[in-house]
């Protein structure tokens, strides 16, 4: 894989989206992945977290992830980052990345990664899935529009999250594949990879792309630029893990 940017692809979340994304990237020839997660494999994960099997239940996801990936793709080096993305750890997590894939399971982490990547000048692909829906949005390095142009801030209440809503396994597969696709396109310098949100409706097999416009008052990429650091107070609502 020859890209315009060097460094590992950083995958935040070794779960339902992270697994198919990692497989697609490794199969495409990506030689270095940095993967972050803080969870252990649970039985309820197995329908969508396709790198794991029954024997992995109870194991740290990172360990099981690295073993399973190495078995299929020995040419891809996997650097493990134990722990979830937090304001204190996010800068180091995204530092030097060619591109970051946000495959996290809560809004706080999504906004944190959006901010951390923008501040570091690293491109990011946000991928999410709930029930039968998936959304994917890629943001170029220091690019506009960003995730905060699409969704202004953390939901206070009422938005579907990973605790209240289940997710269909194949929908995660689609989200992971789309995330990998967008990441590779960003690496290849394809400007059309960003600037839109892709939605997948798993009940109708419908894929739709809608343009996102940069918001002049966006606190992350607009003016005045409000987000200039990773103040922990910005990332406290609606997290899956308190």
């Amino acid at each position: 894989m020859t890209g315009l940017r060097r460094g590992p692809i950083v995958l935040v979340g070794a779960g339902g989206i992270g697994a198919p994304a990692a497989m697609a990237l490794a199969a495409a020839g990506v030689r270095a992945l940095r993967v972050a997660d803080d969870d252990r494999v649970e039985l309820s994960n197995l329908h969508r977290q396709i790198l794991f099997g029954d024997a992995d239940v109870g194991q740290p996801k990172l360990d099981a992830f690295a073993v399973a990936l190495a078995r299929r793709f020995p040419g891809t080096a996997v650097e493990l980052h134990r722990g979830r993305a937090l304001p204190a750890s996010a800068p180091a997590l995204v530092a030097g990345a060619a591109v970051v894939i946000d495959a996290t399971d809560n809004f706080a982490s999504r906004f944190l990664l959006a901010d951390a990547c923008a501040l570091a000048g690293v491109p990011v692909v946000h991928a999410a899935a709930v029930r039968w829906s998936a959304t994917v949005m890629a943001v170029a390095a220091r690019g506009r529009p960003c995730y905060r142009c699409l969704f202004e801030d953390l939901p206070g209440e009422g938005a579907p999250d990973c605790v209240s809503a289940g997710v269909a396994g194949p929908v995660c597969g689609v989200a992971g594949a789309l995330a990998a696709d967008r990441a590779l396109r960003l690496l290849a310098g394809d400007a059309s990879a960003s600037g839109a949100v892709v939605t997948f409706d798993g009940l109708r097999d419908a894929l739709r792309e809608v343009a996102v416009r940069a918001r002049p008052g966006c606190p992350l990429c607009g003016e005045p630029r409000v987000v200039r650091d990773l103040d922990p107070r910005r990332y406290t609502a609606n997290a899956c893990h308190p």
Partner: protein
Amino acid sequence: MGTTVETTVRIPTPLRTLTGGADEVKGQGATVGAVIEDLEKRHPGVRDRLLDEKGVRRFVNIYVGDEDIRFLEGLGTELKGGEQISIVPAIAGG
């Protein structure tokens, strides 16, 4: 007597519990806000999922065609009839 303006509203999966599973419904109204009020009559709860006291909830995007209504006239965005309204809510699972 005024002309009835009808639009198609695409319903994302998280909201289909309110539309009996329908992924697309018809709405009547000359503005986006009026269409939401019309939907509320037949699908109670829709308005609350989309709007709060300030307007469109910050984790929801509403499009007329391919245009985000925030860059048009918001809930006052006028409709001629035949447009497609799409709703894209923030989701976070993975």
